[in-house]
């Protein structure tokens, strides 16, 4: 069963979550053909071989430097057909998830998003997915011969197995309707570790007292190669942009380590972080509900503890 993996690129690099999608295809038994769209370093595409891609189809169309869902859908539907593939794997994201939905509808595939583990094929084709905003899981049997699987971060362990993928240029004729949605401007933080991709996240809440105090969190994040996040009140008050809001109605993260500073731990915030492997809570209130959901905790003044923690991490390196 041939598998096509949609590989997302940002700033000329393959996203880490897309490497996981390639590894997921490999773990399913492959063979894997990766499809990348827009400008990207060739070495980045060859490198996909390390994670299990046999070949890479690259569509170097400048119009696709923007993530146009409709156009990406058309390319992937054609690639699945040309590769005689019956399965598409990709990473859940603002671009990946809608593409998954549209491709699945067009090719009449079983579709499951938010998948957290490799399928169990001992009886049927059963995938485990995250539901109730991280509070539970469900097991779903994908019955159609064609399948589209959108995975969450950490659905598969990322291992390098060596090998270089053959990169072939690929083109698909696209129509005007594929570009009906026009992206007229884009504001994006560059060079930073993106929240949904980060292995470590440092988040601040109202306990940080104001946006002017974020420097110490950024310093801690920098030391740990972490992304910064925040609680809903912080984003509502405009201290930090909305794309950093972690929680029920914001970004759901699943890092190895989540460090919460000055966040009390409302259930809506916990819903966004409960898939984290290890949670550290720093709060001056020993009764903060977040401690109950934490692995490690420190009760005390964030303004003293955070700089000390940054120094201690530097010292331990």
């Amino acid at each position, binding site marked *: 069963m041939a598998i096509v993996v949609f590989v997302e690129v*940002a700033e000329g690099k393959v996203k880490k979550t897309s490497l996981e999608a390639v590894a997921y295809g490999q773990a399913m038994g492959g063979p894997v053909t990766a499809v990348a769209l827009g400008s990207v370093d060739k070495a980045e595409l060859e490198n996909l071989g390390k994670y299990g891609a046999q070949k890479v189809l690259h569509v170097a169309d400048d119009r696709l430097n923007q*993530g146009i*869902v*409709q156009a990406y859908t058309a390319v992937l539907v054609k690639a699945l057909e040309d590769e005689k593939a019956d399965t598409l794997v990709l990473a*859940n*994201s*603002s671009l990946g*998830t*809608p593409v998954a*939905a*549209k491709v*699945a*509808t067009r090719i009449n595939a*079983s*579709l499951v*998003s*938010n998948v957290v583990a490799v399928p169990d094929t001992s009886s049927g084709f*059963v995938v*485990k997915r995250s*539901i*109730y905003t991280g*509070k*539970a*899981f*469900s*097991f*779903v*049997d994908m*019955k159609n011969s064609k399948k589209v699987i959108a995975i969450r971060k950490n659905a598969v362990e990322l291992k390098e197995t060596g090998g270089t993928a053959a990169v072939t240029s690929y083109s698909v004729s696209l129509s005007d309707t594929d570009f*009906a*949605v*026009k992206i007229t*401007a*884009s*504001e994006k*933080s560059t060079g*930073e570790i*993106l*929240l*949904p991709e980060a292995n*470590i996240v440092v988040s601040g809440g109202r306990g940080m007292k104001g946006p002017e105090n974020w420097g110490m969190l950024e310093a801690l994040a920098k030391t740990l190669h972490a992304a910064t996040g925040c609680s809903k009140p912080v984003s509502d008050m405009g201290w930090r*942009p*909305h*794309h950093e809001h972690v929680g029920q*109605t914001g970004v759901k993260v699943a890092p*190895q*380590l989540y460090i919460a500073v000055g966040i009390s731990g409302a259930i*809506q915030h916990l*819903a966004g972080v409960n898939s984290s492997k*290890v949670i*550290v809570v720093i709060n001056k209130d020993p009764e903060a509900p977040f*401690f109950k959901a934490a*692995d*490690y905790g*420190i009760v*005390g003044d964030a303004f003293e*503890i955070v700089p000390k*923690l940054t120094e201690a*991490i530097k010292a*331990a390196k």
Partner: protein
Amino acid sequence: MKILVCISHVPDTTSKINFLDNNTKFDTAGVQFIIGPYDDYALARAIEIKEANAGTTVTVLNVGTADTEPTIRKALAIGADDAVRVNADPTDSYFVAAQIAEHAKSVNYDLILMGRESIDYNSGVVHSIVGEMLGVPSVSPVMKLELDGTKAKLSVEIEGGKESVEVNLPFVAGCQEPIAEWKIPNMRGIMSARTKPLKVVEPKNVDGGVKLQKFELPAPKGAVKMVSADHVSDLVNLLKNEAKVI
């Protein structure tokens, strides 16, 4: 102008999640159901558009059993004009999207709004499937929606930022904050909601090719290990040598 707002009927965000019958059925005991929080943003924006544009009507649609009617009445109390309930258990995204598309085909809506995802199954795909089925564009997650004649200007969240997007009507949007402030129904709205039309239709028979087998709750968390604020380096040791995450 005609707007359709699709709403989900979901457990309140503070609900404890439990399952019954050997982990095959959601336990509704003690659970309060609400309009999906993201759908509630979509509804609030639709009502704002209605208030600013005379002659606009807002229809709400829910795919659900009779249990969802109080949730639908709440949407009517907030300001929707009429409602449609597709009488079925919403088993999967494809099924729900097919019911929405079936209804929308007969009405020619200018705008179809819903939340970016429902907070029970979190699939985040219904808007995209509806768009595909109707042959119109779909955009999500939309944080700002301004109409400008026959087109709309949107702000859409992406990882690490946002995009400004233009699209012609009709289209489908998955919405999220801060597109509008949630609206709380007033007494007049609650009274008038009782008599607003709520039509019940039977579902179209479709199969999305997915079957739920069972649910599972995450393994319970162990007790928190506290570290003294005077020995922050102990935390670094634990993270490095015990948890092995740094």
